[in-house]
C-alpha cells in the first residue's frame, strides 16, 4: 500500500481563533442530531414527556378557550347592540337608532311556548343577508324563507312540532310551509322559527345591531362585546399558560436526570471530542444541542398529536358548549409560547449536564468511567428560608377574608416550589442515612440515590411537585364543590 499523506496548510484566515465559529457549531449540531437519530430510544422518556405535555397543552388550551361562548355571541359582526322591549313606539325607536348610527340590522323575537310543554321558542324575523347578523344564522338544509307563507325552523323546533320539509307550521292562526332547517352557530340551544322581516307582529324583544360611528354618543343600554365579556385577568388562556409553565418546569426537572445519564453514557465520545481539540464550549454545545433536538422533535410531534386529538375531540366540545367551533379555532397565542417553552425547558435541562461534562478531565472521559461524585456541601439555609416563607405567606393568604390574599397565595406557592427543589437533595441524603436497617436491595438503592443526588434529587422534586399539584387541585375542588346544593 502506498501512503501519500501530505500536509495541507490552512491559512489563519481559514481558521477561526476559538471554538471554531460557525463551522464548529455546525459540526457539533450535526453530531448532536446524528446521535439523536441513532439513540432516540434512550431518550424516549424525556421525548414522551414533551410530546404528552405539548399535546395536552394544545387540547387543553383549545378546549378551555373554545368552551365559553364566543366574545361576539349575540353581536354577529356588529360592535354594538341595543335591546328594545315591546312598546308602541318601537318603530320610532328603531328609526331613531338608525338615524343616529346609520346602517342597522334588526332582529325581532316573539317568545312562544311549545304547546304541551314549558319550553319556549322564538318566532324570529331576521334578514339572512343582513348587515351584521349573518354569523348568528346558518342554513343546515333547505333554504331560507323568502315569502310570508314560508318558514325555516331549528332542529329542536322541528322535532317539537314534528315538522318536515314541505310540512305546515301553524302559529297564531297563520300557517307557513317549512322550507329549511336553520341554526344559530353561536348558540346551538337557540330554538326559533325564522320568518322574513316584518312578520313578527308582537315582538317581545328587538335587537338592533350596528357599528357606532365615531363621535356619536348613545345611551347606557347600548352594549359592546367588551362590556359583556369577562374582564377577569385569570381568563382560560392565562390559566392554561400557567399550567403549561408549571408542567414544563416539572418536565425540565425530570429531564435533567435523563440528560445526565445520557451524557455519561457518551462520556468516551465526549473525551474523544476533547482530545481532538474541542473546547469546553464545544462540548457544552453538543450536550445542549441534544436537549434542543429532543425538545424540538418532541414539541413538533406533540403539536401534531395535539391538533389531531383536538380535531377528533372538537365535536364533543361543540355538543357540550352548544356553539359551533371553527376547525382551526386554536389559541395559537397560547400554543406557540408553550411550544417555545418546551424547547426552552429541554435546553435548560441539558445545560446542567453540559456544564458537568465540560468539567470532566479528558483522560477520565476517555476511560469511560464517570468521575466519582464530589461530596456536595450545600447549605440547607436557603431551602429552610423558602419553606418558612411559604408557610407564612400561605398562612396569611388563608387568613385573609373577602376573597383577598391572591398575591400572598401566588408568592407562597412559588416559595413552596423553590423550597421543594432546594430541599430535595437533603431529603435524599436523609433517606439514605435512615436506611441502615432496611433490606439490602432498598439500602443499596437509597445509597445510590444519595451518591448521585444531583440527578436523583431533581426527579424527587418533580415527583413531589406533581403530588403537590394533585393535592392542590383536589383540595380546591373539594372546597368549591363540597356543598351539594351549590
Amino acid at each position, binding site marked *: 500500500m502506498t501512503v501519500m499523506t501530505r500536509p495541507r496548510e490552512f491559512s489563519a484566515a481559514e481558521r477561526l481563533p476559538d471554538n471554531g465559529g460557525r*463551522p464548529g457549531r455546525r459540526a457539533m449540531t450535526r453530531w448532536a442530531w446524528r446521535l439523536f437519530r441513532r439513540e432516540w430510544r434512550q431518550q424516549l422518556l424525556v421525548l414522551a414527556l414533551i410530546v404528552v405535555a405539548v399535546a395536552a397543552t394544545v387540547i387543553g388550551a383549545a378546549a378551555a378557550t373554545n368552551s365559553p361562548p364566543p366574545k361576539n355571541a349575540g353581536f354577529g359582526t356588529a360592535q354594538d347592540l341595543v335591546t328594545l322591549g315591546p312598546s308602541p313606539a318601537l318603530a320610532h325607536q328603531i328609526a331613531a337608532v338608525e338615524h343616529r348610527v346609520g346602517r342597522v340590522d334588526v332582529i325581532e323575537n316573539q317568545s312562544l311556548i311549545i304547546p304541551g310543554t314549558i319550553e319556549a321558542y322564538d318566532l324570529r324575523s331576521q334578514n339572512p343577508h343582513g348587515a351584521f347578523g349573518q354569523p348568528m344564522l346558518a342554513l343546515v338544509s333547505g333554504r331560507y324563507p323568502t315569502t310570508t307563507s314560508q318558514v325555516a325552523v331549528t332542529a329542536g323546533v322541528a322535532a317539537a312540532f314534528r315538522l318536515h320539509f314541505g310540512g305546515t307550521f301553524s302559529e297564531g292562526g297563520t300557517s307557513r310551509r317549512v322550507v329549511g332547517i336553520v341554526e344559530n352557530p353561536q348558540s346551538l340551544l337557540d330554538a326559533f322559527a325564522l320568518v322574513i322581516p316584518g312578520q313578527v307582529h308582537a315582538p317581545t324583544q328587538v335587537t338592533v345591531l350596528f357599528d357606532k360611528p365615531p363621535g356619536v354618543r348613545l345611551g347606557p343600554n347600548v352594549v359592546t362585546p367588551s362590556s359583556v365579556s369577562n374582564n377577569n385577568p385569570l381568563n382560560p388562556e392565562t390559566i392554561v399558560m400557567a399550567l403549561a409553565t408549571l408542567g414544563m418546569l416539572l418536565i425540565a426537572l425530570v429531564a435533567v436526570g435523563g440528560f445526565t445519564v445520557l451524557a455519561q453514557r457518551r462520556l468516551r465520545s465526549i473525551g*474523544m471530542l476533547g482530545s481532538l481539540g474541542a473546547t469546553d464550549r464545544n462540548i457544552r454545545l453538543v450536550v445542549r444541542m441534544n436537549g434542543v433536538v429532543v425538545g424540538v422533535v418532541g414539541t413538533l410531534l406533540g403539536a401534531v398529536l395535539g391538533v389531531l386529538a383536538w380535531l377528533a375531540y372538537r365535536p364533543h366540545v361543540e355538543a357540550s358548549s352548544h356553539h359551533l367551533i371553527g376547525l382551526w379555532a386554536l389559541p395559537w397565542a397560547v400554543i406557540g409560547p408553550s411550544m417555545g417553552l418546551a424547547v426552552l425547558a429541554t435546553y435548560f435541562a441539558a445545560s446542567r449536564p453540559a456544564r458537568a461534562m465540560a468539567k470532566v478531565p479528558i483522560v477520565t472521559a476517555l476511560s469511560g468511567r464517570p468521575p466519582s461524585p464530589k461530596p456536595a456541601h450545600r447549605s440547607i439555609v436557603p431551602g429552610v428560608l423558602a419553606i418558612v416563607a411559604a408557610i407564612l405567606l400561605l398562612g396569611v393568604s388563608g387568613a385573609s377574608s373577602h376573597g383577598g390574599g391572591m398575591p400572598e397565595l401566588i408568592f407562597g406557592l412559588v416559595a413552596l416550589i423553590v423550597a421543594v427543589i432546594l430541599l430535595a437533595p437533603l431529603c435524599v441524603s436523609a433517606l439514605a442515612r435512615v436506611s441502615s436497617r432496611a433490606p439490602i436491595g432498598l439500602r443499596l438503592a437509597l445509597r445510590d440515590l444519595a451518591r448521585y443526588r444531583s440527578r436523583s434529587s431533581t426527579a424527587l422534586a418533580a415527583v413531589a411537585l406533581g403530588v403537590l399539584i394533585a393535592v392542590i387541585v383536589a383540595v380546591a375542588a373539594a372546597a368549591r364543590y363540597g356543598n351539594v346544593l351549590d
Partner: protein
Amino acid sequence: MSFLELQQVSKSYGEGQTEVHALSNITLSVDRGGLVAVMGPSGSGKSTLLTIAGSLEEPTEGEVLIDGQPLSSLSRNEKARLRRRTVGFVFQDFNLLAGLTAVENVSLPLELDGVGARRARVAGLQALEDLGLADRAGHFPDELSGGERQRVAIARAVVGDRHLVLADEPSGALDSTNGEAVMRMILAACKRGLAAIVVTHDAQLASWADRVVFLRDGRIVDQTIPPPSPEALLQDVRNP
C-alpha cells in the same frame, strides 16, 4: 531542534498513602520526522506519557514543550487549539465518533478549528484517499472493519497540517497484517516530517521506530536504537 520535549516530567495520582507515581523524572525528546516507540509492562506509565505529551493531562512536575512552546504557559482553550492544529491521537480502540461518517470523523478537527465544512471535507477525503479509504468515506464506523477504522483514525490524526502523532497501542486490536499496515502509515507520516510516539507491546512493530524507549514503574530504564527495519533493509538493497 526537537519538536517534542519532555523535561524531568513526573506525574502522580492521589494523595498521602494512596499516592501513585505514574511517571518519575522522564526526559524525552522527539525530532521532526522521528518515530519513537515506547514499550513497557502494563502500568509502567506509557499511556500517561502520551496523554501528558499531548496536553490531555498536566504533569505534576517538569515541563513539556511542543515546538519550543511550554504547555504550562497555555490556557485550556490554547491547549485545545494546539490539539486541533498540531497534535493527532491514535488510540487502540479507534475512538471514532459514532454517528459521523469516516470523512466527517476525519474532517472534524478542521471544522472545530473553523475551517468551512466543504473545505474540511475535501481535506478529509484527500487524507482518506492517501490511506486507500476513499471508497469508504461515506460509511459509518460500525460499517468498517477494524483495520479500516484504525486507518480512519490515522487519517484524522494527520489531517490538516499536524506535526505530532501520538499513538497508544494503534495495532493492539488488529491482526498482524493490519498492525504492520498501520505502522507503515505512521512511518510514512514521519517521513514527510511529522514527529511520532507509538506505544506498543509488540517488539517487532517497535523495531520500525528510530528509537525504542523502555519504561518500568514510571521510569525510563533503557533506550535502544533498533537495527534497520525490513523496509530500510530493502531500500538499502535497492539503493546500494
